[in-house]
C-alpha cells in the first residue's frame, strides 16, 4: 500500500456493502446535529468502500482519500504538569481540506475532547473507543515506554476508524482536530460542560421513568450487546492468561540449556549431542518469546479494543433509550395537558423525529460496526494462528536439523534406534 502512514494490521479494512440496508441510511436527506453536510451521494460512498481481504489491503490505497498517522510521542514539561504530545500527520485529497498535508501535535486530552464531541453530536452512532486513561492492573506508569507505545497505536487506530466512518469522518470537529495548530480555542466553543450536564440529568430522569417499550430490534440488539460484552471479555481474559502461562514457561525453559551445557562438560562422546539439544532448546525458547510478543502486539490490543467497544455499545443503547424516553415523556404530557397543545405538539414532533433519526442512525451504524468487528477480530485471530503455525514450523526445523547432525533420518523412529 502506498500510504506509509497506514499500518498493515488493523486499519485499512473495508466495509462489507453487500447489505442493502446500508444504502438506505444514506439515501435519506437529513442534516445532522452538528450542521455538517452529508457526503454527496450514496453511490460515491459505495465506490469508496469495497469488500476487502487482509492480503489485498494494498488495493485499498486507491480508494482511500485520507491517511492519518499518530507517532513521535514526546514528553512535554510545564510548570504544572508533564504530559505526552503525539504527532498527528494527515495526508488527504478531500476537498473539504484546504491543504493536502497537515501536521499537528495532540495530547491524550485532545483525543478525549474529539471523541466527546463526536458522541455528543451523534449520540446513537458507534464511535470507536479510545485507549483507557491509565492502566490499573500491573501498575504501569504513565510514561513507561511500552504503555506509551500501546497508547500511540490505539490512538492511531482510533483516528483511522473515525476517518473510515462515513458520517463521523465528515465532522467539523474531526477536521479541526486534524488541522488546527492550536486546539485550545476550539475546545472552548460549542455546547459546553453545563449543557452536557443537563443532558445527563435528563437522561437519568428519563431512565427513572422507564421505557414504555423498546422496539423489538433494539431488544435483540441489547441482548446481543450484553452477550458480546461477556464473550469478548472472556476471550480477552483467556488470552491474557495464555500469555502469562507462556511467559512462565519460557522462564523455566531458560534453565534447560545451561543444564545440558553443564552436562556436556563432563562427557566425551555425549558432549556433542548434549550441546546440540542445548542449542535447540535455547532457540525454541527465543521463538516462544517471539510468539508471546506477537500475541501481545496483535491479539491483545484487538480484543481489548472490542472490550471497550462493548462498553461504547452499551452507552449507545442507553442514549437511544433516553431519546425515546424523552419523547415518550413529552408525548404523555401532550396527551394529558389540554393547554399549549400547539407548542407542545411541535416539541413532540421534533422529539419524534429525533427518535427516528437516532434509531436509523444506530441501525445503519450497527451493521457497519458488526462487519468491522468481524473483520478486525477475524484478522487478529488469523494472524495469531499464522504466527503459531510459524512458531511450530521454526521449532520443527530446529529439531530436525539436530537429528540430521546426529545422522538420523528425521522420520518416525519410535524406538530411537540408530538408522543405518
Amino acid at each position, binding site marked *: 500500500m502506498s500510504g506509509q502512514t497506514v499500518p498493515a494490521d488493523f486499519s485499512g479494512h473495508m466495509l462489507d456493502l453487500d447489505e442493502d440496508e446500508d444504502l438506505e441510511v444514506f439515501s435519506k436527506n437529513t442534516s445532522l446535529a452538528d450542521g455538517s453536510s452529508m457526503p454527496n451521494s450514496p453511490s460515491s460512498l459505495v465506490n469508496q468502500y469495497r469488500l476487502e481481504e487482509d492480503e489485498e489491503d494494498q488495493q485499498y490505497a486507491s480508494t482511500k482519500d485520507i491517511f492519518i498517522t499518530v507517532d513521535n510521542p514526546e514528553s512535554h514539561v510545564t510548570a504544572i504538569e508533564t504530559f505526552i504530545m503525539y504527532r498527528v500527520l494527515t495526508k488527504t485529497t478531500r476537498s473539504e481540506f484546504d491543504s493536502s498535508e497537515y501536521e499537528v501535535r495532540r495530547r491524550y486530552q485532545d483525543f478525549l475532547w474529539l471523541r466527546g464531541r463526536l458522541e455528543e453530536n451523534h449520540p446513537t452512532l458507534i464511535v470507536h473507543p479510545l485507549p483507557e486513561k491509565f492502566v490499573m492492573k500491573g501498575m504501569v506508569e504513565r510514561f513507561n515506554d511500552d504503555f506509551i507505545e500501546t497508547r500511540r497505536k490505539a490512538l492511531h487506530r482510533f483516528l483511522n476508524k473515525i476517518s473510515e466512518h462515513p458520517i463521523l469522518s465528515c465532522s467539523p470537529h474531526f477536521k479541526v482536530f486534524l488541522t488546527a495548530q492550536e486546539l485550545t480555542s476550539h475546545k472552548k466553543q460549542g455546547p459546553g460542560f453545563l449543557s452536557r450536564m443537563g443532558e445527563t440529568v435528563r437522561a437519568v430522569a428519563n431512565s427513572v421513568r422507564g421505557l414504555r417499550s423498546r422496539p423489538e430490534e433494539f431488544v435483540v440488539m441489547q441482548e*446481543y450487546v450484553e*452477550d*458480546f460484552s461477556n*464473550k*469478548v471479555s*472472556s*476471550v480477552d481474559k*483467556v488470552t491474557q*492468561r*495464555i500469555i502469562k*502461562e*507462556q511467559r*512462565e*514457561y519460557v*522462564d*523455566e*525453559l531458560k*534453565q*534447560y540449556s545451561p*543444564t*545440558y551445557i*553443564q*552436562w556436556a562438560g*563432563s*562427557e566425551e*562422546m*555425549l558432549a556433542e*549431542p*548434549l550441546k*546440540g*539439544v542445548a542449542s*535447540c532448546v535455547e532457540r*525454541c525458547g527465543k521463538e516462544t518469546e517471539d510468539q508471546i510478543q506477537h500475541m501481545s502486539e496483535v491479539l491483545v490490543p484487538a480484543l481489548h479494543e472490542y472490550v471497550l467497544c462493548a462498553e461504547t455499545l452499551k452507552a449507545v443503547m442507553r442514549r437511544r433509550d433516553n431519546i425515546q424516553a424523552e419523547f415518550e415523556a413529552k408525548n404523555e404530557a401532550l396527551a394529558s395537558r389540554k393547554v399549549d397543545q400547539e407548542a407542545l405538539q411541535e416539541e413532540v414532533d421534533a422529539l419524534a423525529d429525533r427518535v427516528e433519526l437516532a434509531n436509523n442512525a444506530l441501525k445503519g451504524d450497527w451493521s457497519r460496526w458488526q462487519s468491522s468487528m*468481524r473483520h478486525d*477480530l*477475524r484478522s487478529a*485471530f*488469523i494472524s495469531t*494462528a*499464522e504466527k*503459531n*503455525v510459524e512458531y*511450530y*514450523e521454526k*521449532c*520443527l526445523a530446529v*529439531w*530436525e536439523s*539436530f*537429528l540430521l547432525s*546426529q545422522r*538420523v533420518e*528425521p522420520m*518416525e*523412529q*519410535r*524406538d*530411537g*534406534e*540408530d538408522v543405518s
Partner: protein
Amino acid sequence: SPPLYDHLFSCLSKENLIPCPHPSMVEKGTNLLRKMEINVVEAEKRTGKNTVNMQETYTVYLIETRPAETVPEGGTPATPDTLWRRYSEFELLRTYLLVTYPYIVIPPLPEKRVSDAYLEGKVKNLYKFKFVWHKLSADNLDPDFVERRRGGLENFLLRVASHSVLSNDEIFFHFLTEGWRERVLETGFQDKADSRLKSLSAMFRVKNPDKRFTALKHYCDELNTVISQLLRVRARVADRLYGVYKVHGNYGRVFSEWSAIEKEMGDGLQSAGHHMDTYAASIDDILEEEEHYADQLKEYLFYTDAVRSVCRKHELIQYELEMAAQDLTHKKQQKEELATGTVRVFSLKGMTSKLFGQESQEQRESRLAALEQSIQEGEEAVKEKNTECQEFVRTAWEDIERFKEQKDKDLREALISYAIMQISMCKKGIQVWSNAKECFNKM
C-alpha cells in the same frame, strides 16, 4: 522341572555350554536374553499379613518368560511361564547381585517410593486446573506409579539378562522361573551383605587409589548432580507447558458460547473452538511420552550409585591391601630390631626389656621365629590381596568400559528420541493451528 528349564538346557547344550553357578566359568558373551523373552506384563494388588503380623496391601508384578525362538509362519508363540514377584523380592535379588559381583555395575531398580516431586506435580495440577492430569491419590498403589514401576522392573530384568556375566547367574535364572528364595538364602549372601554395608559406610583413607577410579567417582558425582537438576527442570517445564495448553481449552468453551450469538461469525468460531479443545487435550499424550524420556534419565541417575558402589569396593580392597602391606612392613621392622638389637620403633616390649633387663637368648629366638612365621603369613596375605586387587581392577574396569559404552549409546538414543518427540509435538501444533486458521478464515 518346568518346560522352560528343559528348553534352556537344551538350548545351551546345543552350543556346548553347561549352566554353571560360578560366573567366571561360563563362556563370555552368552546372553540369557537371546534364549529367553522376559516381560513384566502386569501388576496386581494383594493383601496379606506382613512380618509383624499386620495387614498390608502391596503390589505384585507378573513376570512372563518364554523361549526366544522364531515362530514359524502361521504358528502361535509358545505359552509363557509366569509367576508373581513383589518389589521387595527384586530388591533382594539386586542385593544378592551386588554382593556376589562387586566388580560389576549392577543395573538399578526403579524408585521404591513415590517421590515428593511426583506428589507435588499431582497436587499442583489438580489445584490449578479442572482438567486433571493425574488423580490426587499418590501412594505406592497409585496406578500410574505402579505402571511406571512395572516398566522399570522389566527394564531391570532385561538389563541383567543381557549382561554377559550377570545373565548366567543361576539365582537370577531361578528368580525368573521358580524356587529362588531358598536358593538365594542358601548362598549366605546376607552375611556378606551386612559386612559389605558396614565396610561401605566406614570412613577410611586410601593412600594410592587407582586414578581412574578417582576420576570415575568424580564423574559420577557430576553426572548425578546434573541429571538431578535436569529432571527437576524438565518437571517444571512440563508443568508450565501443561498450563499453556490447557488454558487454550477455555478458548474452546468461550468460542462455542460466542458462536451462539453470532450469525456470520458463528460457524467459524465454533469450529475453531473445537480445534482449541483438541490442542488442549493433546498435551496429555505429549507429556506422557516425555515421562519415558525422564525415566531413561532417571535410570542413569540411579546407575551413578551403582558405579560409585564399584569404586567404593575398589577403595576398600585397596585399603585392605595397604593395611596388609603396612602391617607387613611393621613386622619386618620389628624383626630387624629384634635381630640387630636396635630400637628404631618404640615398643612396650622394648622399653620393658630395657627397664627390667634383657630377655634370654632363648626367649629372643622364639620371638624371632614367631615373627618370621608372622612375616611369611603377612607376605602371603599381601600377595593374595594384591592379586585380588589387580583382578578386581581388571574385571571392574572391563565392566566399566562396557557400562560407559552402554551409557553413551543409551543416552544418545534418549536425546534423539526426545528430539523426535519434540518434532511430533510441533507437527501436532502445526496441524491444529492450520486448521484453526481455516476456521477463522470462515468467520
